[in-house]
């Protein structure tokens, strides 16, 4: 008697699992709002910076909207997103946006990703003028619980994480517009 009912329940749960898994995969490549409410952005203490005269600290940036971009120059998805980031920096820096690249290697030092000269060459190649921190020990990556290249964290003027996401996007595509809308929202607060 219970057989058909159990089968029905199993099918329902299996379908739910598949749908949920699909939704999670779809979300992966899209910027998603952090689950739950706002949370304080962790401080970082990277010592090696490029395009900055001195290391930037989070507490110095109160009153500004901060977009962190976790990337590495060997990641094509990251470098293909750079034109969008350069554009956002150009358009919104004077309005209160601080864009910061957190350059986090994928491989051990033998791959060259840890090398400051290689990072500097990549910044020049892609026209990046916003500050970049070398996160060779992955401390900032771990503090923000990042898993993918590229990833993004948008922090409001009070130092609260408001939006997070991962995945390549391009100038003026839907994801670009989503991020731009979020930046404008936080700048207006």
């Amino acid at each position: 008697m219970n057989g058909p009912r159990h089968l029905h329940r199993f099918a329902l749960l299996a379908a739910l699992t598949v749908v949920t898994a699909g939704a999670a995969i779809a979300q992966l490549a899209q910027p998603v709002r952090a689950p739950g409410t706002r949370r304080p952005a962790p401080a970082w203490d990277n010592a090696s910076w490029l395009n900055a005269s001195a290391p930037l600290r989070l507490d110095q940036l109160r009153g500004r909207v901060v977009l962190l971009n976790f990337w590495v120059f060997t990641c094509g998805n990251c470098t293909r997103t750079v034109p969008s980031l350069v554009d956002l920096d150009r358009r919104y820096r004077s309005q209160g946006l601080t864009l910061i690249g957190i350059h986090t290697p994928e491989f051990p030092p033998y791959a060259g990703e840890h090398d400051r000269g290689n990072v500097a060459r990549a910044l020049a190649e892609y026209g990046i003028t916003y500050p970049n921190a070398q996160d060779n020990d992955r401390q900032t990556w771990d503090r923000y619980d990042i898993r993918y290249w590229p990833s993004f964290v948008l922090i409001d003027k009070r130092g609260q994480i408001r939006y997070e996401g991962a995945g390549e996007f391009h100038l003026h595509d839907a994801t670009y517009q989503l991020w731009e809308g979020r930046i404008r929202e936080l700048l207006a607060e």
Partner: protein
Amino acid sequence: MTPRTSCGKGEFVSCSRSRPVATLLLLGLAVTACRSAPSADAVRLEAGVRQGRKVVAVVPAPGFRINARVPPALELRSGAVIRLAAGRVLPDSSYYVEPPWAVRPVGERLRGVLRVSFCRASEALCRTASLPVDLRE
């Protein structure tokens, strides 16, 4: 008062109480499964012969691509690092279009870790896998 019953038997009301819990568990499991890097399913190391020489190659599973800008590495217990590469890459040099490979050291058991940066073709992001390797001659 509604009698307490186990799910699947008795009053529907009692069963419906446990469903949100099961649903939440399933949601958690599904999300956790999706967030984990599917490294073991994404790539594998294969031994073979190429132009008369013994080689090892990293073969991506269907739907996965291997990052060519940071070639895969076989980090052996001896401390040696073998980089695997292939000549054919996409026009922007971001991914290999054939499995990257390397000549296998003669007479050496390959024990260590295979490190690969890869991407699921349907995603627009990179992730790294570290897989244990133990290949006998």
